[in-house]
């Protein structure tokens, strides 16, 4: 069987990797000339943090994440199992209490324990939550490694080609198409919407973190994910619109003032990059697979592309190898 996948974002590349692992012939076709150019996963935080996410996500997100960290560890080199940390300023303690109530698998830390875990934050916070089983990875490196993995297993990944699923099925030896175009598939998937996210990449030679840190705040919560070599990804806004082309002054101001509140040392950090894109989401903010004839649509990974990509890829691979899904059927995850 020959499977073509449209879109080389995290959804498409997870599917491709899972399918080549199962011995299926795969071709990934991406319209951008280079990896990440139009994939929102290029701007992801790369946190594999199902318990932290369960603060606002459905229980299905935790369930689908069960094998995620192991899957990534098998496929890429940057997985770091150091857990994650959640803190809030003294005046926002109610945010931390709420977060603790709504999540599990965490330990309460006092200021001293927090300082032992992250020396850079010593003395900054009196309380925190530590989620020891969570992990993070470098999204851009991970996507590149998946491309290499697919190619090494005999699959193709082609950039700079724009095709539709119908064209592929009509003109080539493709048996099945998996459409993983994210927000670009909104014409076909009319309940899909975009949720704008803005981020920055910072470099600080003074501060080091070993794990993602979330700073809770009633208006502008942030997270900061260490990428190594003093580089940090600072994210991310959540705005209900589909603007992909600009970070606003307000958003940058909020992100930067929050990271400054996390540690004033970031005031001297260098801004390496700003990024913006939209997360594709269905109304329940959960991913779904929909089959129409010989086309599978995998979409709606929202802010959980890296966390849920493996589970959705395994699900599609199960479908393709088992052919359990009927045309017109939608597999939801709620």
């Amino acid at each position: 069987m020959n499977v073509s996948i449209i879109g080389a974002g995290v959804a498409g590349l997870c599917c491709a990797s899972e399918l080549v692992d199962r011995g299926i012939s795969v071709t990934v076709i991406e319209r951008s000339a280079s990896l990440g150019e139009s994939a929102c996963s290029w701007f992801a935080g790369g946190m594999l943090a199902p318990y932290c996410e369960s603060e606002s996500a459905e229980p299905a997100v935790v369930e689908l994440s069960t094998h995620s960290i192991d899957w990534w560890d098998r496929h890429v080199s940057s997985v770091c199992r150091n857990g994650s940390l959640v803190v809030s300023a003294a005046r926002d303690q109610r945010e931390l209490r709420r977060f603790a109530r709504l999540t599990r698998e965490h330990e309460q830390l006092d200021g001293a324990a927090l300082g032992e875990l992250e020396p850079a934050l010593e003395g900054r916070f009196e309380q925190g939550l530590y989620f020891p089983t969570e992990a993070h990875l470098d999204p851009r490196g991970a996507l590149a490694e998946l491309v290499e993995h697919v190619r090494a297993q005999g699959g193709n990944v082609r950039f700079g080609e724009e095709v539709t699923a119908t064209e592929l099925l009509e003109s080539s030896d493709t048996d099945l198409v998996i459409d993983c175009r994210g927000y670009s598939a909104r014409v076909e998937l009319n309940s899909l919407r975009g949720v704008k996210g803005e981020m920055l990449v910072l470099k600080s030679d003074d501060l080091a973190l070993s794990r993602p840190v979330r700073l809770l705040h009633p208006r502008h919560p942030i997270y900061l994910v260490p990428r190594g070599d003093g580089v940090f990804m600072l994210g991310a806004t959540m705005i209900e619109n589909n603007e992909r082309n600009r970070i606003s002054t307000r958003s940058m101001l909020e992100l930067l003032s929050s990271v400054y509140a996390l540690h004033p040392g970031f005031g001297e950090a260098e801004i390496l990059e700003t990024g913006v894109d939209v997360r594709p989401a269905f109304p329940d903010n959960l991913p779904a697979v929909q089959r129409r004839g010989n086309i599978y649509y995998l979409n709606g990974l929202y802010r959980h592309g890296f966390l849920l990509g493996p589970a959705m890829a395994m699900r599609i691979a199960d479908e393709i190898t088992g052919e359990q899904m009927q045309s017109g059927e939608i597999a939801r995850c709620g």
Partner: protein
Amino acid sequence: MVRFYGVEIRNALLLGTAQYPSPAILAEAIRESGVEVVTVSLRRESGNSRAGEGFWALIRELGAHVLPNTASCYTVKEAVTTAQMAREVFGTAWIKLEVIGNPDTLQPDVFGLVEAARILSKEGFDVFPYTTEDLVVADRLIQVGCEVLMPWGAPIGTGRGINNPYGLRTLRAHFPDVPIVVDAGIGLPSHAAHAMELGCDAVLLNTAVAKAGDPVRMARAFADAVAAGRAAWLSDPIDAGDMAQPSTPVPGKAFLS
């Protein structure tokens, strides 16, 4: 029942649409609580090119009356422009007018509010002004054309309840025929019931439902609370007193039993 600019509303709970875990949970909360009016913000969501259409379409599908707001506007001009855009996007003359005066407390700039209300009322808008409980400001708002008052209970998102019951009571006494909607600062259903017991006509809230662990159940709890508070107001509650009053007369009771 309350009437906003000629529209009859039976459910005295109004809900904001921000911060829910997902639009699906928002929709369920609206459905389960029977809410008939929802607010939606446009200033930040519209971006440069009214880019919020995906979410706004979901709001329209809720089937409730949409009350667009001018949240995040700090000047009269911003608020007026946002209101004009809201009218086009949602096809309604209703506008919840917010002109924020302080970035920390998010309290209204009442001077800008009166000015913006004057401009928008002249342009044919039905203005729902987010104001303080100040009587004189309320009077000015009514003079420039507002037929609804929306005093705060406490600063937005704080969940502190009714900070100034005396102020709300005064508004009620001075404007017996103007619908009063307590907007902001409500944290618990008991706060909402309190507002209604003071004679307010409705309660608008967002964070207390959206950020609850179970938003759908909390929306129902608030709907029940405003209904209970309204019924209490209409039932002429007793005044608090110092002297205990046995509900069964002591004389005549067999006291050696």
